[in-house]
């Protein structure tokens, strides 16, 4: 990155943007302001509350699973409320357990982690980081949120229909998911398909918006190599969403046809193919894995550079790694199917592509370490979570090598080793980065700091209990402990390691309890928190140059960008940060926007 002065590289399509007049009164009604708002910041916050709600629902389901696994056959405290169809005298039934497994995965992936990363940070950050007044299509953006809501309601409602919620796993493999006689679930399984299809439209509307905004609405001076890494990651993620989600939507509709109107796309009796579903599902599903980690990587990069007071190490390699991961992400889906009956030769080629994806992941990890090297590390709460992200991502990344090796996958496929791996990536990785991002940007959108003491307690308890829950899953997986098993004590060799399960369950309850601190922190800080200054973290990106909370319309006039986002501790400057929009010595602020617009028009 160069720090020398450059004038505006180009003037984007300024005419489409509405810039608030100075002293502009926000006279929108309550409904327009907070409910059916087209403001990207409000939509981001709406996604925050929606996905945090589902994060806690998904977490509660996990607690119930852990109860059954830790204390099989014992009545769950409060289990009586579920009724006889789900729990007899508080003892969970196996069919209800299968619903818990399915819905935990579904809620966490589709309604918590994905909207947290894409819906929240995509909306919060993209217009502010590119210096725009709002998204390219604000009404489409509002529609995206209000399409996600009914999808979530449908999914949640399926717990109360006859037969209960879907029970064929979040992967919904047919024939189990297609034929009610096999799973015992009819309506729930159909609602699953409908909800996923509806949610797909929400994701597509978001993706189109993000891509357009980033391509067309960057402020003058904001070249591609000056974009913040979260925006790079969200840009590539939006492309993945645009290409992957329609495949899932299509597959879900075909499955719905099999369930309702007697087709047999996935049923062998009439010539269908169960494996077809797996190919379609994972063709979506593996890019989805990167949809769930790339924005987290971007957030971690932003926070680590800020907390280290250093430019990001190897910015161009970081960008290249994001693009490479996204590209390779399209040709690795078969590694979910090594034991499926797919041609083993195909397994070999998928193994190679899967292994190679470890390389860009390693580049990113080393660059985070490089960023911290000789830094001036400030361990504010976002930084703690971002460093934990790196530490946990290393574990999740390395354990992936085991499954990628086809012969070892024979043994550990569908065991708890996989459960450990995916939680190290999605919880240890994505969720810790999400925590980092929320602690970091909350002040900009709500005008209040989150309480740092509560934040530190939340971080340390989460970090410790997370590892106590999920690290032993590697060990029991290596013993051959199958996943999605209602009662492991049915097997002699698993009954022997039952104390491990009990230990993980108790740790899980503590981990779950610790998350209430996070919730309490949000509620308390909104109510009584310290007022946020405009730039509490001394960060460089454009949003920190405007007041907290960021006003409607964002910037008073179109900002000009003079340098990249990671100019920390530059030697020619006394302060250890250098905002992107602040002219350096010899750099003059370009003429006011009005004048430029006239020049561009004339």
């Amino acid at each position: 990155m160069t720090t020398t002065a450059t004038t505006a590289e180009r003037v984007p399509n300024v005419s489409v943007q509405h810039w608030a007049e100075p002293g502009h009164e926000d006279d929108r009604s309550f409904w327009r302001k907070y409910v059916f708002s087209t403001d990207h910041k409000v939509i981001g916050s709406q996604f925050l509350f929606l996905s945090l709600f589902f994060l806690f629902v998904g977490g509660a389901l996990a607690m119930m699973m852990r109860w059954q696994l830790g204390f099989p056959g014992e009545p769950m405290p409060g289990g009586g409320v579920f009724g006889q169809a789900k729990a007899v005298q508080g003892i969970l039934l196996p069919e209800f357990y299968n619903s818990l497994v399915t819905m935990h995965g579904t809620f966490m992936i589709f309604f918590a982690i994905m909207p947290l990363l894409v819906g929240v940070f995509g909306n919060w950050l993209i217009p502010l980081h590119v210096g725009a007044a709002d998204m390219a299509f604000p009404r489409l953006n509002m529609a995206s949120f209000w399409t996600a809501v009914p999808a979530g309601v449908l999914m949640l409602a399926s717990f109360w229909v006859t037969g209960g919620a879907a029970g064929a796993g979040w992967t919904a493999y047919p024939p189990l998911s297609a034929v009610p006689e096999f799973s015992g679930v009819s309506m729930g399984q159909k609602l699953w398909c409908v909800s996923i299809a509806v949610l797909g439209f929400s994701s597509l509307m978001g993706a189109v918006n993000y891509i357009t905004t980033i391509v067309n609405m960057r402020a003058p001076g904001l070249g591609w190599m000056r974009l913040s890494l979260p925006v790079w990651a969200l840009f590539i993620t939006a492309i993945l969403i645009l290409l992957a989600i329609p495949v899932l939507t299509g597959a879900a509709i075909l499955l719905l046809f099999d369930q309702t109107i007697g087709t047999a796309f996935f049923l062998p009796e009439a010539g269908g193919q169960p494996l077809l579903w797996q190919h379609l599902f994972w063709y979506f599903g593996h890019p989805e894995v990167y949809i769930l980690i790339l924005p987290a990587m971007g957030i971690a990069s932003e926070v680590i550079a800020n907390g280290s007071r250093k430019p990001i190490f190897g910015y161009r390699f970081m960008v290249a790694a994001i693009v490479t991961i996204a590209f390779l992400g399209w040709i690795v889906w078969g590694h979910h199917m090594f034991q499926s009956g797919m041609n083993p030769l195909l397994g070999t080629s998928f193994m190679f592509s899967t292994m190679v994806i470890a390389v860009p992941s390693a580049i990113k990890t080393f660059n985070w370490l490089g960023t911290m090297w000789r830094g001036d590390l400030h361990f504010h709460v976002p930084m703690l979570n971002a460093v934990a992200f790196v530490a946990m991502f290393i574990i999740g990344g390395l354990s992936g090598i085991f499954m990628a090796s086809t012969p070892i996958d024979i043994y550990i496929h569908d065991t708890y080793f996989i459960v450990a791996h995916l939680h190290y990536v999605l919880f240890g990785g994505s969720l810790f980065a999400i925590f980092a991002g929320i602690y970091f940007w909350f002040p900009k959108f709500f005008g209040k700091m989150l309480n740092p003491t509560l934040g530190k307690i939340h971080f340390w308890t989460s970090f410790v209990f997370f590892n106590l829950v999920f690290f032993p899953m590697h060990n029991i997986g290596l013993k051959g402990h199958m996943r999605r098993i209602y009662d492991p004590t049915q097997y002699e060799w698993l009954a022997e390691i039952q104390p491990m399960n009990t230990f993980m369950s108790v740790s899980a309850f503590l981990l779950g309890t610790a998350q209430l601190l996070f919730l309490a922190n949000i509620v308390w800080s909104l109510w009584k928190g310290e007022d946020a200054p405009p730039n509490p973290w001394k960060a460089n990106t454009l949003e920190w140059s405007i007041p907290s909370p960021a006003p409607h319309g964002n910037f008073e006039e179109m900002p000009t960008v003079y340098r990249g986002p990671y100019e920390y501790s530059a030697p020619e400057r006394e302060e250890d940060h250098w905002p992107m929009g602040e002219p350096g010595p010899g750099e003059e602020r370009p003429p006011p926007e009005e004048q430029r617009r006239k020049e561009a028009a004339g």
Partner: protein
Amino acid sequence: MDWSWFLPDPVSTFGGEIDTLYYWILGITGFIFVVTEAVLVWFVFRYRHKEGRRAHYSHGNKRLEIVWTVIPFLIVVGISWASTEVWMEVKAADRVPAVEADLPLRVAAKQFEWNVTYPGPDGEFDTGDEFVKRNQLHIPVGRTVRIDLTSEDVIHSFFLPDFRVKQDAVPGMVIPVWFQATETGEYPLACAELCGLGHYRMRAQVTVHEVEEFERWLATETGAAGVEPGTAPAPADTARIETGQGDGDGEAASAPAGDEDSGKGGDRA
């Protein structure tokens, strides 16, 4: 509490090879894990903020980037290359000992049981002396067992942890599986793919006999099943019922395992 990273003892011929590969990867990833996490923790303490500290202004180092791109690449390609041979030995259909198999078996999974069809003392199917045992897999030690695996309803997964064998059983497909036991004893067979409300108890017992003992067992069971060794071939329909094939699966079931078709790999998609 068992925090071990060792695998249980393998009892199949290729089990040891898989485990060796596992320990290599454990060594390599374990080393990388310890080094990177140690560096991280060291940085956290070494470079934490103190009064007057200022970060070193640097945008990276191209040579270093190339080094840590090339080295991981070589490592993962090496691991893949080492994995290929073992994988193909275990899974590739053209290497499944079709003719040389000492004991051909048919296993049909269904909610929530494993039905094993034995060929009878003559070691051949469709000769009228085959019989079915539910949730019992009896095999001789030191002999190659070849299983034609299918499912009657949903996808199950045939998992023999001690033998390092796992293969999904898919309705509409017949997938070859082979292994050779190296020790006698009793071992679990479990379902590893979520298959419905009884998934957690879809288990069977594998009994590995001495060869003579196995032959005695086979003769006893054949007698008990009321079929005479070497009687006329049963009509195709009967065979289908005995192997538990549904109507729609007729084609898959009647295709002799190991023929040209399945020799090209299990994926008929």
